[in-house]
């Protein structure tokens, strides 16, 4: 295994504050002499299964040591939580999950060697039962969308209280998705405003109907040409409008021409 990070060696005979505060936490980058082999199940499946009454194993990933230590102290006060490791980079996060099998991973979005969404994608591909809660200093919609796409169970802006972080960890462990309402409202708003799909979303039949619309054909004309009922053609038109985010047949044709879904030659 590659040696991913040097641990800052505390002065001789001195224990670092980190060690004092988190003395039962094994650091993933603690070096070979502190090799952690709690679990032998290589896929991590068996060990990350829930067992009634057990403590929730939590991993913390944040490149700001001060924040990671602080979160560790905060979570350790909870009797049902156990901090199993702290990591500062994407590489260390992956190693942490591989070696310590946390039930829940608190993952900072911005890390020195990559972003949280990439890390989450990789972790969830290899250890799908892990629950990832994304922490982000900036609560941007884009980060939220990428986190959800990556399969994260929760998303918390860092301006939330410690209590909310604890709730998010517990909710994620229970298999719930926790996204603050304010964040969700922003996301829904964004989805409403975003163009509803592209050419790739059109079925072959819808594409044919669109081309005929572009030629100026009526619903009746299209239905007789394609041997479809007018009702079916109207359904296709409705779907085309929805997929192109258009409010009329004219707008649908305009959008389709603009986006290159159909060419103007279709009209001739």
């Amino acid at each position: 295994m590659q040696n991913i990070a040097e641990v800052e060696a505390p002065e001789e005979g001195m224990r670092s504050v980190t060690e004092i505060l988190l003395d039962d936490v094994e650091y993933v980058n603690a070096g070979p002499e502190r090799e952690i082999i709690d679990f032998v199940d290589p896929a991590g499946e068996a060990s990350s299964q829930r067992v009634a009454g057990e403590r929730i194993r939590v991993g913390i990933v944040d490149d700001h040591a001060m924040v990671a230590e602080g979160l560790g102290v905060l979570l350790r006060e909870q009797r049902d939580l156990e901090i199993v490791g702290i990591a500062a980079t994407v590489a260390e996060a992956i190693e942490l999950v591989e070696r310590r099998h946390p039930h829940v991973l608190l993952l900072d979005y911005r890390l020195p060697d990559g972003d949280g969404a990439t890390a989450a994608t990789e972790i969830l591909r290899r250890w799908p039962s892990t629950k990832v809660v994304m922490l982000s200093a900036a609560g941007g919609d884009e980060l939220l969308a990428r986190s959800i796409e990556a399969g994260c169970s929760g998303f918390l802006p860092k301006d939330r209280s410690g209590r909310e972080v604890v709730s998010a960890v517990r909710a994620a462990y229970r298999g719930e998705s926790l996204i603050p309402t304010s964040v969700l409202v922003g996301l829904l708003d964004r989805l409403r405003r975003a163009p509803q799909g592209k050419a790739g979303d059109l079925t072959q039949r819808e594409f044919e109907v669109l081309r005929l619309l572009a030629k100026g054909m009526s619903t009746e004309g299209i239905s007789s040409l394609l041997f479809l009922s007018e009702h079916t053609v109207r359904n296709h038109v409705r779907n085309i409008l929805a997929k192109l985010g258009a409010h009329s047949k004219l707008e649908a044709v305009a959008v389709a021409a603009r986006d290159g879904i159909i060419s103007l030659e279709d009209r001739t």
Partner: protein
Amino acid sequence: MVLADDQEAIVDALTRLLAEQPDIEVLGAGRNAEEALKLCIEHEPDVAVLDVRMPQGGGPVAAMEIRSRGLRTRVVALSAFDDNATRDHMMASGAVSYVLKDRPVSELLEAIRQAAGSSQGESVAS
């Protein structure tokens, strides 16, 4: 001392962590420059740990206000930004030290103790 950072989880976490130190008393915590200044006026703490980036001007604004009001409070800047411009701005605004969030908590504790020492030393001398 008092503490201000707009990231509440971090304030919660650091407050607990600092409160565990026998020689440190956390008198209050704020979320922006204005709250930080209010706390400093109310408690006139030895040390204020201020995040450099907070709403309403962040650490620099709060630090300048603390200085212009003649409070004895020494400002320790807490920052996620390791660049000279941010550091210089903060130090020019009156901070006595600049601690990065990616450093261990021990560095923050050391900065707080040093700042407290200079604050008390000066107030005795004056």
